[in-house]
């Protein structure tokens, strides 16, 4: 367990390349309403083969930002074969499983169902309609792909996270680290190790909660 003090304050920015800045601006600024808040016009940057570029930022709330690089003269081919599955950053062959292709994504938080449905309305009226709306365990999300092929999620919590879920998450991770430290990790081994940790630690946790810690 770590007791390091927690000094970070959310996401400053997450950055991706784009080869279609016009559609990217349309999607984030004009459809979703994310303001443009910063841009850098950079020429003669870094090593000789570095193209001139525009680095531009959209406000995604909470003073966090999503940013893009547009490289003048760069070809989309640098991300892989054109037409292959994936996004402009990384393209994948036909043999790569779909779950893997879709695993990387950005999820932006909204406060409630009303706000989630407002973004659904904006996307559905655009060239990038919502592809899925899913209630997971305790969150509800809408998904689409942005003009660059990046999977884009907006999500809301259906209820607040409880303290016991934080305990459960820590037991899961401790069990996972034990199981991946041994040969041939499996889901069954994880559940067995976690059961042991529940017996070892869960009762004490309840006492600690009861005493108000």
């Amino acid at each position: 367990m770590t007791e390091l003090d927690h000094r970070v304050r959310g996401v400053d920015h997450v950055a991706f390349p784009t080869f279609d800045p016009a559609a990217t601006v349309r999607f984030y600024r004009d459809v979703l309403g994310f303001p443009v808040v910063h841009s850098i016009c950079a020429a003669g940057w870094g090593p000789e083969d570095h193209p001139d570029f525009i680095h531009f930022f959209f406000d995604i709330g909470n003073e966090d930002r999503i940013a893009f690089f547009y490289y003048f003269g760069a070809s989309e081919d640098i991300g892989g074969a054109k037409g292959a599955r994936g996004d402009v950053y990384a393209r994948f062959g036909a043999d790569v499983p779909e779950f893997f292709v879709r695993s990387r994504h950005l999820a932006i938080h909204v406060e409630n169902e009303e706000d989630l449905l407002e973004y659904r309305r904006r996307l559905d009226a655009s060239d990038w309609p919502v592809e899925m709306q899913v209630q997971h365990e305790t969150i509800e999300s809408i998904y689409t792909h942005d003009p660059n092929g990046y999977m884009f999620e907006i999500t809301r919590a259906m209820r607040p996270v409880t303290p016991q879920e934080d305990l459960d998450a820590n037991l899961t991770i401790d069990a996972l680290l034990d199981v991946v430290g041994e040969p041939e990790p499996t889901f069954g081994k994880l559940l067995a190790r976690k059961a042991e940790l529940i017996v070892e630690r869960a009762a004490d946790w309840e006492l600690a909660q009861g005493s108000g810690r």
Partner: protein
Amino acid sequence: MSTLYVLDVPENTPVAKVAAEDPAVTVGRIGPYFEISAAGTIVIDRRATGCRHAVWYSAVGGVARDSRITQHDKDALRVEPA
């Protein structure tokens, strides 16, 4: 002996409730978890729980080493002595 653990959060409580309807099954507590156990096999019917799939497939917190999951699909969760 079959034993599984399910975290006590609102989405999961129907799992423990449905399990407890079997007189051979005991539902106790350990910390914030339901401890669901039986001398033999535990079977929980998914439709009876009313759980959404995302909840259903992530409801199991742990399974004791003397037990194993032999079914966990859209119909039921079955835990048997190993």
